[in-house]
């Protein structure tokens, strides 16, 4: 099967203050249609940079990104991003107005009736129907997150990019959003790439996990656990321990990316590349 997203030797380095180099270096991977991919690593490992490169907000220094065989060269609604932070809705539009504005901008042929119905459909899907005519300031953090998801799905992107989407929520809200995301993913079959630093979230959600450290892709593994994934299962805890070790491993990787994992993966056996 042809991959939907292909990232080839992507490098994007920038100097931050005190000559600390941040960014990503020589990153390559592929994502198939419909996959739910978790990108995990400690803060400053370049995972957000990667997502912004795919979204087209950042230019790469070298390397290429392909979506459906076409080279990515700037932002576009085929790769819709859910950012960090709760200020992503336009405050001058109602929740429904935000969805309609997005759809109208992307697809100019839709009639007002179609726009309205489609907006209502997606708000229903995320459980926000009762809040459709409210303004963003009237919504709680969790409701805003739902609205971001509804808007992102309403423009029918090929891939949904999420940058630590639920980082600002409490444990309950986070759990609810994770369940909702899984439900939406199963329903729409959309391809999702999400960045997180929460190992549990990564295990619960992803099919495939990309482990980043200091700007390089250290491991690319498939999640061996069947859904639904329960913390109570021994297999879950075993995988959690292994993944934690991979994320926290602090070996010197200055000389190019280490593609072979240094620990023995008993059942996380599909190592890409």
């Amino acid at each position: 099967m042809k991959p939907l997203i292909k990232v080839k030797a992507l490098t994007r380095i920038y100097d931050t203050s005190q000559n600390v180099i941040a960014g990503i270096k020589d990153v390559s991977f592929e994502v198939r249609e419909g996959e739910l991919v978790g990108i995990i690593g400690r803060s400053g490992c370049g995972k957000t940079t990667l997502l912004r490169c795919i979204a087209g907000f950042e230019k790469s220094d070298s390397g290429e990104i392909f979506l459906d065989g076409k080279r990515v060269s700037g932002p576009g609604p085929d790769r819709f991003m859910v950012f960090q932070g709760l200020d992503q809705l336009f405050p001058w539009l109602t929740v429904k107005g935000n969805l309609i504005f997005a759809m109208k901008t992307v697809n100019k042929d839709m009639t007002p009736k179609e726009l309205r119905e489609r907006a209502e459909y997606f708000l229903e899907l995320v459980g926000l129907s009762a809040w459709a005519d409210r303004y963003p300031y009237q919504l709680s953090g969790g409701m805003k997150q739902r609205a971001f998801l509804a808007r992102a799905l309403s423009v029918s992107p090929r891939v949904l990019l999420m940058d630590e989407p639920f980082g600002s929520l409490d444990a309950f809200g986070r759990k609810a959003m994770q369940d909702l995301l899984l439900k939406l993913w199963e329903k729409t079959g959309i391809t999702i790439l999400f960045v997180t630093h929460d190992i549990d979230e990564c295990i619960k959600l992803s099919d495939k996990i990309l482990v980043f450290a200091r700007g390089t892709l250290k491991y690319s593994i498939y999640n061996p656990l069947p859904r639904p994934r329960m913390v109570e299962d021994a297999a879950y805890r075993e995988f959690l321990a292994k993944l934690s070790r991979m994320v926290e491993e602090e070996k010197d990787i200055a000389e190019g990316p280490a593609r072979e994992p240094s620990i023995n993966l008993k059942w996380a056996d599909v190592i890409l590349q």
Partner: protein
Amino acid sequence: MKKLVSKTALIFSLAVLWEAVRVLGGYSELLFPSLRSIVLSLWAERAQLFANALFSLKLIGLGLFTAVVLAMMLALLCMSTKIFPGVITDIMAIMHPLPGIAILPVAILWFGIGIESILFVIIFSALWPLLNHFYTGFRSIPKNQLEVGRNLGLSGVKLALSVMLPASFPHILGGLRTGWARAWQASVAAELVFGAAGGQGGLGWYLYKKRFLMETPGVFAGMLLIIAIGLVVEYLIFTTLENLTVRKWKAVID
């Protein structure tokens, strides 16, 4: 209703204070006219005052509109280029402290004695505060909202109109208020300094004439009208605009 009562009470107490100071101080009618003579003068000259006010408003409207368009274009240029912000910030630092009236002599040299000179002073006076507000507004737009716009495929003028303008509206509204006040000040000051432009004149010219003829109640009548127009514009236009936009979105604190 409660607001209306408090506002009426404020105006009434100011009027009482005025009369009290006048009577207790025993000032001459030429220096400190009674409210009665001011109101009588206002009524007697209503046709003239109306014509002058209309003239001023037309001039200010035209000047303010031009300044808003110019400021908007400059602010957008600042947002879309790398060297422009530095240049404009420097120019603003030079021009902003300069009173509009100070360039009137130059304006007369360049444009002659006519409404063009006054218009130039009005535009100059309103442009810099407008630009300052607009540019500050554009820079304070949440990055996420700009990026959502770009993610949807918007750029250039489309992004400016459908995202940047509403997102920075609290600042734009603030700029319009300041610009309007500056434009008024400039038009009155310019006419006070050098008289009418051509055959017609505005309220500044009215004040100039009345002072020249020592008709003090007329001077105060003209000032009263300027204040009244300011209040009407504030409550009819700016407050309404604010209620329909930034207050509704809770983009400002009540």
